[in-house]
């Protein structure tokens, strides 16, 4: 709406009467033909009205209210069943498995990922090529396929041995006992996370100005010191949001282990509804848990981001403000631009 008006104005002759009287536009209130400076100084500022935003906000709020209403009033959601199963032992066991599988995969995936990123950033051509190849192949294969692959490893390699390459073998394992469902899930997901985290870390490191490394080197800091004290802290603001995203994705991606009968949160719910056919309420149980966990992770991510914002705010506010900082709610509100705009408009209309 506003753009249409702005587009039109320049084409019109610059007489104030005509642009004010442009057809279709509401008349712009004016004080006088030629207001005096005193009148201008005394004039109240009226913000531009944005009816489009206001209307869309109302529409969305109504839709949201309808959604809440139907969730609460439709008996077929069976909220009493949801409540009954929410803290049942099998669900809680599944939840625990989801949690520690996520944590273990994330930790080892990042350890591996940092190594792969370091290889890619190194001066060694072979390491760079290996790192590139790893990321390429792992990112190309769907995680579900990887999972099944590790689960079925026993059919490809019935035994695995430790020993001299192409030479003597010292210890031999039977793979049939090695890759239980959980271990296959752990290995498959770790390799997947390693590839993605390597790219996240690499991107973060590349985002740090080369001058930082040079200044640190010129001061006589050693390589690992330069990385830990100078480069990494400055790479973190780029790494943390992407990693938070990856972690939350992983939390839910662990649910693919249900295909190899690992009893995580989702599969535990499925096992129950396979018996009692209360499909929707049990899916809701799992969903609500995922929402709770994701919320906790998001809040945690916010605090980590704030920690690494040290010294990043512009002059004046500075690091002090970054640390004393705004609460989660302030940030959430600031990001809900629609909400913010609506409040302004309401103030303008009143």
């Amino acid at each position, binding site marked *: 709406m506003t753009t249409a008006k702005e587009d039109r104005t320049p084409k019109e002759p610059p007489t104030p009467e005509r642009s004010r009287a442009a057809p279709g536009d509401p008349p712009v209130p004016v004080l006088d033909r030629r207001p005096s400076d005193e009148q201008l100084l005394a004039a109240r500022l009226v913000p531009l009205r944005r009816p489009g935003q206001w209307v869309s906000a109302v529409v969305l709020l109504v839709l949201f209210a309808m959604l809440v209403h139907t969730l609460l009033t439709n008996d077929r959601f069976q909220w009493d069943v949801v409540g009954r199963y929410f803290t049942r032992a099998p669900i809680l066991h599944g939840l625990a498995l989801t949690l520690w599988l996520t944590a273990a995969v994330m930790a080892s995936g990042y350890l591996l990922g940092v190594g792969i990123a370091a290889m890619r950033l190194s001066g060694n051509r072979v390491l760079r090529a290996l790192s590139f190849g790893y990321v390429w192949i792992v990112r190309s294969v769907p995680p579900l396929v990887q999972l099944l692959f590790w689960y079925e490893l026993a059919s490809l390699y019935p035994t695995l041995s430790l020993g001299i390459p192409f030479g003597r073998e010292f210890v031999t394992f039977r793979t049939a006992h090695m890759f239980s469902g959980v271990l296959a899930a752990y290995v498959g997901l770790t390799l997947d996370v390693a590839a993605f985290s390597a790219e996240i870390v690499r991107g973060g490191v590349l985002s740090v*100005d080369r*001058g*930082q490394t*040079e*200044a*640190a*080197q*010129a*001061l*006589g*800091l*050693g*390589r690992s*010191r330069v990385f830990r*004290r*100078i480069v990494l*802290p*400055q790479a973190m603001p780029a790494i943390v949001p992407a990693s938070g995203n990856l972690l939350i994705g992983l939390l839910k991606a662990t649910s693919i282990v249900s295909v190899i009968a690992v009893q995580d949160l989702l599969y535990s719910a499925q096992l129950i509804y396979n018996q009692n056919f209360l499909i929707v309420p049990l899916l809701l149980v799992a969903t609500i848990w995922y929402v709770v966990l994701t919320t906790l992770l998001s809040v945690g991510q916010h605090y980590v981001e704030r920690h*690494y914002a*040290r*010294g*990043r*705010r*512009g*002059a*004046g506010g*500075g*690091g002090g403000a970054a640390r004393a900082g705004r609460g989660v709610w302030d940030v959430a509100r600031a990001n809900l631009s629609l909400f913010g705009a609506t409040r302004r408009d309401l103030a303008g209309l009143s």
Partner: protein
Amino acid sequence: MTGGERPALNALDGDALNGDAVNGADRPLVRVRGLRKSFGGHVVLDGVDLDVREGEVTVLLGPSGSGKSTLLRCVNHLEKPDGGFVELGGEIVGYRASGGRLHELRPRHIVRQRSRIGMVFQQFNLFPHLTVIENVTEAPVSVRGTPRKRAAEHARELLARVGLAGREDAYPRQLSGGQQQRVAIARALAMEPRLMLFDEPTSALDPELVGEVLAVVRDLALSGMTMIVVTHEIGFAREVADTVVFLDGGRVVESGPPEVVLTAPRHERARAFFAAVL
């Protein structure tokens, strides 16, 4: 590109390798001999010789792209030379001479050499995530193992010396360019270097901030610090330099006291350059 002008490898076999007894105490703190560096076929340094004596200020002048920054970066081994060498206090920078060869040093030895050379960059390159005092104490604490408290005391003195007492807890972004550059100088001084390198320390500054930084550099020169300064501030060169070196196309084309080089340059390129700058 003529080979005769470059004493590069001949010099290696003689005095540089075995320590020169002839020059003795008179030996310059910094000796650059036959320094060559190319970037992918593009010759940037083409056999540079340079001496800087203890306590002297050498100002490097030259048109853009003449290799001034590259020369400075070779002095503290941020850039690996293709040929020739840099010697600081009798030690070859970045290499160990033995059996007629130069063996590249391990990182920790290079780190030790670098800690004796302070460098100030055109873009300041302060660490934005550290406060002013953390910027200054980082190297003494992590490289020298100086106790944090002692390092902080020393840092406060240095910051007072560059006129920034009271700004210890600010972050770099809260400071003006001139203040940031003065912090960068304090940060380099914190390692108590024997040699300071300045690469156009005032080029990124608004004109009204240039003076405050040059004043600090001048004070440092008066205190007897050995320095190599790349700058386009001819007035500063005239006032502070013991030697002015004019670089063009990766070679030293003029070298001598400022009153000679700046007023009566022999080389055509230098004359044209000064005519344009002055």
